[in-house]
C-alpha cells in the first residue's frame, strides 16, 4: 500500500518529527551545522563560481538516481541512497553539500524526514555517510595503488559501510531519545542496512565502472589537500566514534543519565514528568541473550574491520616506498 | 537603447581548438554592422555554437574578437556580456531560477541596478515577448515555446544591443514557430542567428553566413546564397521552398 510508490525514499532512515527529543535534535543540528559549514567553505574554495550550478544539478542527479530501482528478490528492491557515490565522484565536502540538499528537499517536499529532526537526518545521511565512504574509498585506493580492483572494492566497501554506519547512528539517536530500545533497534536497523548496503554497493560500483570507462579523468579528486592516509583515518575515526557510542548508550543507562545530568540535558526537559533515558531493565541485553550477541557481533565486526584496514594500510604504506615506479596499465 | 556607430561585431582570423584536439574554428573572419540581421547556417559540427560562445568571452580562441569596439577580454567582459544577449539552444539551460521573475531579473540584478529599475525591466521584457502573465510561474511547468520566449525575455531585460540566438525555432510546432518568428521580427537589435531553419532565414534574415568545417565558406545576401542550389548542396543545406519553382517542390502527404 504505502510502499508501492507514495514513498520516494529508498531506505527507512529518514527520522520523522516526534521520534527524537528536542535535546538530541538540537545536538544533531549543531553537529550538522558544523559539518555543513566546513562543506560550504571547502567546496566553495575548490569549485569557485561553479559551486552553485554544479552542486545544485548534481543534487538533482542524486535525487533522480535514488529513483532507479531494480528487483533484488521477490518484492524487495535495491536502490541507491547515494552518499558514497557522491563522495567518490565529487569529493567529500561537495558530497556533504549535495546530500544535505537532497535530504532537505526530501523533508520539505515529501515530508520524508521531519523538520526539527532534519539536523539528525543531515548528520546521518549527508555527513556521516559520505565522510565514512570517502575515508574507506581513499583507504582502499591507497592500498590498491594503481591496480584496477581498488576502484571496485573501494567503491563497494565505501558504499556498504557508509549505509551501515549511518543506520547505526540513526538507531543511537533513537535510543538516546528513549524512543527505541537500542538492543533491538541497532541490530534491526544495522541488519536491514547490511542488506540494503549490498544493493548500494553494487549500484555504486556499476556507476563508477561506467564513469571510469567514459571519463576516467573525473575520478581523480580535484582537491587533494589531505593524502589518502589522512582521509581514511578521518572516515574510519567517524565510524569508530559512532560505533563506540553504541555500547555507551546501552550498557550504562545510569552512566548516560549521569552524563546527561552533568551536561544539563535533564534540566532541558523543563520539569517534564518524563525522563530522557527511562530507567528500565533491558530484557534483551542480559548476558548471553540473542540481542546482546547480535549487538556485540555488529560492533565487533566494525571494530575489527577498522583495525584490520588500518593495519593493512600501514603495511601497504611501508611496502610501497620502493615500488613507486610500478608500471600502470 | 542607443545604436552604436561602430561595427557591432568584428571577428578577425579566429581559430579555436577543442580539448580533444579537434579544430573547431579555423581563420574565421566576420563583420556585422549595427542593425543587421544575419543568419549563421551550416551542417552540425560546423562550429556555429562554438563561434557564438566567443562573442561574450565564454570561449577564448586565437585571433581578435571585438564587440562594440571593445576587445572581448577583461576588463570589458562585464559590459560586453550586458550588451550581448546570448540565447542558448536549450531553454532549460537558461532558465535556472525558481521563478520566471527571478530568471528575467537575473541579468539586471547582476548588472547592479536598483530594485525599482529591475522590476521595471522585468515587466518590460516580459511584455516584449508577450509573457507578462507568467511572471510568478515556475519554469518547469511551461511548454517549450513558452520557455523559449521567456529565455529571450531573460536576455532582453539586460537591454542588449546585440541579440545572438542559437537554434531559436528548434523543436517548435508550426504555430509556436510562427509566433516566435513574429517575435524576432519585432525586435530591433542587431541579430546573429545560428539555425537549421532555412525557411526562417529566407523570411526574416537578409544576410547569411555559411559555416562548414570551422571555416566561413560564404557570406552575402540571403537571396543570392540560398538560391544557389549547388552551394547549398555542397554544404549539406536545403534550398528553402520560396526559392524552388512550384513544379519541383517536393509534395508531402
Amino acid at each position, binding site marked *: 500500500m504505502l510502499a508501492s510508490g507514495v514513498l520516494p525514499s529508498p531506505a527507512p532512515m529518514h527520522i520523522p518529527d516526534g521520534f527524537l527529543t528536542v535535546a538530541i535534535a538540537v545536538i544533531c543540528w549543531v553537529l550538522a551545522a558544523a559539518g555543513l559549514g566546513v562543506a560550504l567553505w571547502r567546496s566553495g574554495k575548490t569549485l569557485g563560481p561553479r559551486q552553485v550550478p554544479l552542486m545544485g*544539478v548534481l543534487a538533482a542527479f542524486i535525487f533522480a538516481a535514488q529513483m532507479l530501482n531494480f528487483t533484488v528478490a521477490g518484492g524487495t528492491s535495491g536502490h541507491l541512497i547515494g552518499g558514497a557515490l557522491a563522495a567518490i565522484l565529487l569529493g567529500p565536502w561537495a558530497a556533504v553539500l549535495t546530500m544535505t540538499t537532497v535530504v532537505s528537499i526530501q523533508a520539505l517536499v515529501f515530508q520524508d524526514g521531519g523538520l526539527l529532526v532534519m539536523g539528525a537526518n543531515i548528520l546521518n545521511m549527508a555527513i556521516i555517510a559520505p565522510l565514512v565512504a570517502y575515508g574507506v574509498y581513499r583507504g582502499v585506493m591507497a592500498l590498491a595503488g594503481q591496480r584496477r580492483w581498488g576502484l571496485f572494492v573501494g567503491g563497494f566497501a565505501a558504499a556498504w559501510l557508509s549505509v551501515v554506519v549511518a543506520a547505526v547512528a540513526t538507531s543511537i539517536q533513537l535510543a538516546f531519545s528513549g524512543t527505541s530500545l537500542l538492543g533491538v533497534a541497532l541490530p534491526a536497523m544495522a541488519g536491514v542496512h547490511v542488506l540494503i548496503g549490498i544493493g548500494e554497493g553494487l549500484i555504486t560500483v556499476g556507476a563508477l565502472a561506467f564513469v571510469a570507462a567514459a571519463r576516467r579523468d573525473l575520478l581523480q579528486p580535484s582537491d587533494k589537500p589531505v593524502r589518502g592516509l589522512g582521509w581514511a583515518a578521518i572516515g574510519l575515526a567517524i565510524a569508530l566514534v559512532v560505533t563506540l557510542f553504541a555500547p555507551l548508550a546501552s550498557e550504562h543507562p545510569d552512566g548516560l543519565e549521569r552524563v546527561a545530568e552533568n551536561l544539563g540535558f535533564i534540566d532541558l526537559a523543563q520539569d517534564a514528568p518524563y525522563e530522557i533515558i527511562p530507567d528500565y531493565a533491558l530484557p534483551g541485553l542480559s548476558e548471553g541473550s540473542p540481542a546482546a550477541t547480535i549487538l556485540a557481533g555488529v560492533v565487533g565486526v566494525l571494530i575489527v574491520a577498522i583495525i584490520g584496514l588500518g593495519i593493512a594500510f600501514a603495511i601497504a604504506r611501508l611496502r610501497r616506498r620502493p615500488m613507486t615506479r610500478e608500471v600502470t596499465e | 537603447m542607443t545604436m552604436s556607430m561602430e561595427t557591432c561585431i568584428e571577428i578577425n582570423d579566429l581559430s579555436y581548438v577543442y580539448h580533444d584536439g579537434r579544430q573547431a574554428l579555423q581563420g574565421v573572419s566576420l563583420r556585422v554592422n549595427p542593425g543587421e540581421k544575419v543568419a549563421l547556417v551550416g551542417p552540425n559540427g560546423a562550429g556555429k555554437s562554438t563561434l557564438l560562445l566567443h562573442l561574450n568571452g565564454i570561449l577564448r580562441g586565437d585571433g581578435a574578437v571585438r564587440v562594440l569596439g571593445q576587445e572581448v577580454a577583461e576588463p570589458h567582459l562585464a559590459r560586453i556580456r550586458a550588451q550581448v544577449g546570448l540565447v542558448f539552444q536549450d531553454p532549460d539551460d537558461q532558465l535556472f531560477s525558481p521563478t520566471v521573475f527571478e530568471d528575467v531579473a537575473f541579468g539586471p540584478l547582476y548588472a547592479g541596478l536598483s*530594485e525599482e529599475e529591475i522590476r521595471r525591466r522585468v515587466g518590460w521584457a516580459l511584455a516584449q515577448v508577450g509573457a507578462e502573465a507568467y511572471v510568478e510561474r515556475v519554469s518547469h511547468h511551461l511548454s517549450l515555446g513558452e520557455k523559449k520566449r521567456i529565455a529571450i525575455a531573460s536576455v532582453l531585460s539586460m537591454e542588449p544591443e546585440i541579440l545572438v540566438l542559437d537554434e531559436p525555432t528548434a523543436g517548435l510546432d508550426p504555430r509556436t514557430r510562427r509566433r516566435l518568428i513574429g517575435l524576432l521580427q519585432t525586435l530591433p537589435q542587431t541579430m546573429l542567428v545560428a539555425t537549421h531553419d532555412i525557411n526562417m532565414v529566407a523570411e526574416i534574415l537578409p544576410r547569411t553566413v555559411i559555416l562548414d568545417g570551422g571555416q566561413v565558406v560564404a557570406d552575402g545576401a540571403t537571396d543570392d546564397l540560398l538560391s544557389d542550389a549547388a552551394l547549398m548542396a555542397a554544404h549539406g543545406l536545403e534550398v528553402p521552398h520560396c526559392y524552388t519553382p512550384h513544379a519541383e517542390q517536393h509534395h508531402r502527404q
Partner: protein
Amino acid sequence: MRDYFHVSRIMLMHIHALDAYRFKASLVHRLDARVKLVLAVGFIVSTALTPDGAWLAYALLAGLMLSVIAAARLGVGFVLRRSLVALPFALAAVTVMFTTDGEALLTVHVFGGDLSITDAGLTRFVSVLLKSWLSVQMAVVLTAATSFPDLLRAMRSLHLPKVLVAVIGFAYRYIFVIADEVARMMRARAARSGTLSLSEDGALSGNRRSGGSVFWRARVTGGMAGSLFLRSIERSERIYDAMVARGYDGEVRVLRHPTLQLGDLLIALLFALVLALIQLLARLI
C-alpha cells in the same frame, strides 16, 4: 509479469507530485512565508516538548492543527493522506511499549523470557505517535500552502546560508529535467531489451528473459546512473555558461524580501501565545 527494472511510479506518473504546493485563496496561503516557516517549526518543537500522557495538551494541539487546516482550506482528508508518510517509522518506537517501567497490561511469552506491555510504555508509545503525526501534518500544511520559491526566500531571509539555499533552489528546478531524462533512458532501455510494458501500478518496465542475475541488474542500473551523472555534469556546465552570459560572478545575489506586515506579525504572536499556553497547561495538569 516480472519487471526487473522500474522507475518509481511517482516519477513517471506523478512528476507534478514533486511540487507539493496547492494553490488556494486562503489566509494561510497569503501569510508571509517566513512567519509560516517559523510557526510550523515552533509547532513541531512544541509537540516535541509536550510530556508523555498529557492527553489534554495533545487534544488541544490537534484542535489547533485542525483549525490551521481549515484556515488553509486544504481539507482534512488531503492532509491525512499526505501525513501517512511517517507511519512506517512507528515500528521503530514499538519496543518502548515493552521496556518502560510500569504496571504490566499484557504479557507475552517469548524466547528469552516474558515481554510485558506496560501502561507507561503504552503511554509513551502513543505519545510518540501523536507527536509524530501532528508534526507531519503541520509540515504538510506548510509545504502545501507555501510555494517552493517562497519557502526558499523565507529561508534566505531567516539567514540560512545563501549558497545552500541557492543550491537547493537549483536542485529543485532541475529534478524535473533530470527525471525526464531518466524516463527517456528507461524507455530506451526497455525498448532495446524486448517487451516494453506498463504494469498495473503504472510502472514502466522492461523485461529480460527470466534470469539475468542480481549483479547484472545492479550493474545496468549503475550504468544508467553513471551515464546520468555525466550528462548532469555537462548540463551544469551549460547552465554555468548561461549564468556567466548574464553577468554571474560567483556571488549569490538576491532581491530584498518585502517587509513583514503587521498583520502577519500579530498572527505569529497569537499562535505562539496559544502554543505557550498549551505547554503551560500540560505541565499544570
